[in-house]
């Protein structure tokens, strides 16, 4: 698909990824469920990844793609610790009632 770079202007990728980023930010502010907030953060990171890959493909230097590789690494570590924390919270409150997480006031 060599001609994608010629026929799709780069601005479209800019717009798409900033729209996805804004949806992610909205999700973090909008939802209260802890696990969904974590997912929205993943969405934000993915929009950044898309932006970096598009920049690096259009400019023809692959620093951006290597950066994306490291963002994935960090996201995996972050999710591992975050979900372990969720398990720990649920062990401490000894219930599965989701309302308890509302104590996490913003």
């Amino acid at each position, binding site marked *: 698909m060599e001609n994608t770079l010629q026929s799709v202007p780069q601005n479209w990728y*800019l717009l798409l990824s900033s729209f996805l*980023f804004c949806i*992610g*930010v909205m999700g*973090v502010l909008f939802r209260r469920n*802890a696990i969904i*907030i*974590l997912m929205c*953060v993943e969405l*934000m*990171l993915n*929009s*950044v990844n898309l*932006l*970096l890959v598009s*920049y690096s493909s259009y*400019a023809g*230097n692959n*620093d*951006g793609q*290597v*950066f994306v590789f*490291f*963002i994935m690494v*960090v996201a995996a*570590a*972050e999710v591992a*610790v*975050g979900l*372990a*924390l*969720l398990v*720990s*919270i649920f062990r*401490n*409150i000894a219930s599965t009632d989701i309302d308890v997480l509302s*104590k*996490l*006031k*913003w």
Partner: protein
Amino acid sequence: MNEILILMKSEWVLLLIIIIFLFIKVGSTEWKNENLLYLANILLLINFILGFVLNTDGIIFDEMFKTNSLICLEKNILNLGTLLISLQSYHWLKNHKHVAEFYMLLLSTLLGMFFMISSNNLLMFYLGLELSTIPLAALANFDLHKRQSSEAAFKLIISSALSSGLLLFGISLLYGTSGTLNLSEISQHLNGSNLQLFAFILLLAGFAFKISAVPFHLWTADVYEGSPVAVTSYLSVISKGAVLFVFVSVLYTVFKSLGIAWQNMLILLSVLTMIIGNLFAIRQNNIKRLLAYSSIAQVGFILAGISGCSQLGTTSVIYFILIYVFSNLGAFGVVSIISSTTGKETISDYKGLYKSNPFLSWTITIALFSLAGIPPTAGFFGKFFLIMSAAQNGNYLFISIAALNMVISLYYYLILVKAIFMDKNEQAIEKIHVPILPKIAMLICTAGIIIVGLYGEIYEYIFKLSFGY
């Protein structure tokens, strides 16, 4: 090869200590907690001493990693703070099940901060930042059976993930508009277009989250209150200090050409941070929350110093952070020992502390005086230089707001001092036996508060090393 060994020596030493603890943990022999703690403190002391030898300048790994005397000095300050925190947390860790893990996580965050300070590349900066926050979230949960502690940790990881998301979007826009990740090349490609300005604002927001400047401070008080005291002091001194070091160098060297834009933003952030931090500190009842808001207000003063845009600005920020390490850790050391022996954390519990524990009372009083900036202590000189740096722009309204805030902050620090010395209390805290290691840490803090202020050479030494605008 030799060059890599010498230039990255502080990182190698830390990595070695982490690996030692890893082998102790997976090894078959069970170590007693006391021995493990003594070993840890000795290793950290060696690490601190080694920070003073073999300091050379250089850039290695394709301009990824840079080091010079100033960076070594900053690393030494962080090393000192970590050593003090480790000494202070002796009493808390003595009965903890996961001492080796505590040190592994703590030192890996410190390693992350070192890489972040030495970074000359946006990727290195980002990785260092994440290495210094992700294990910290696990550390905040180290009171494993307390619900508050887990909630604090979760709040910390969500807010840090959000802030690094903002930071990353800024970084990617910066990469897109300049075509490189190398910090020194980016500074040549800045043209002040709107997209780059926006990228800069996103970066600024990410930084402001990490140092808890005001519109982005909402996580601070809850996290500080819920975490164990050792982790709270680490968060408020070491991790904040490291981010501030990087913040100053990024602003002064990389974004120099956007100077006019960020100077006004910094002044606005600084005023908001000082006022809101102080006003909220007044109404707190829990001492950890009080110290949290007071540390927010201190960040306001530091931002005021940064807005000066001169060599004086750099110097005053580094000097103030050195003083802040001593004074905040002095206060937190006392809070730590009282909280881990009696579990009392409210201000009314501290009434009449002087009757039973004169040593602890004097330590915390001197530390609070230094935080408030009362003359013979070092805190006064630190704030004096910060405000002098801010005054270079001739914005006298800003200076008078800062001075007014020093008076407000005096009020709540003195209320605490009054409670300790004058108020009577039926159920005052009983006499606490302070173990030898925390006692040494408190004495170092007190000595530091007095000496750093009176011994002018230190300031001149930092001034000689630091970079101008």
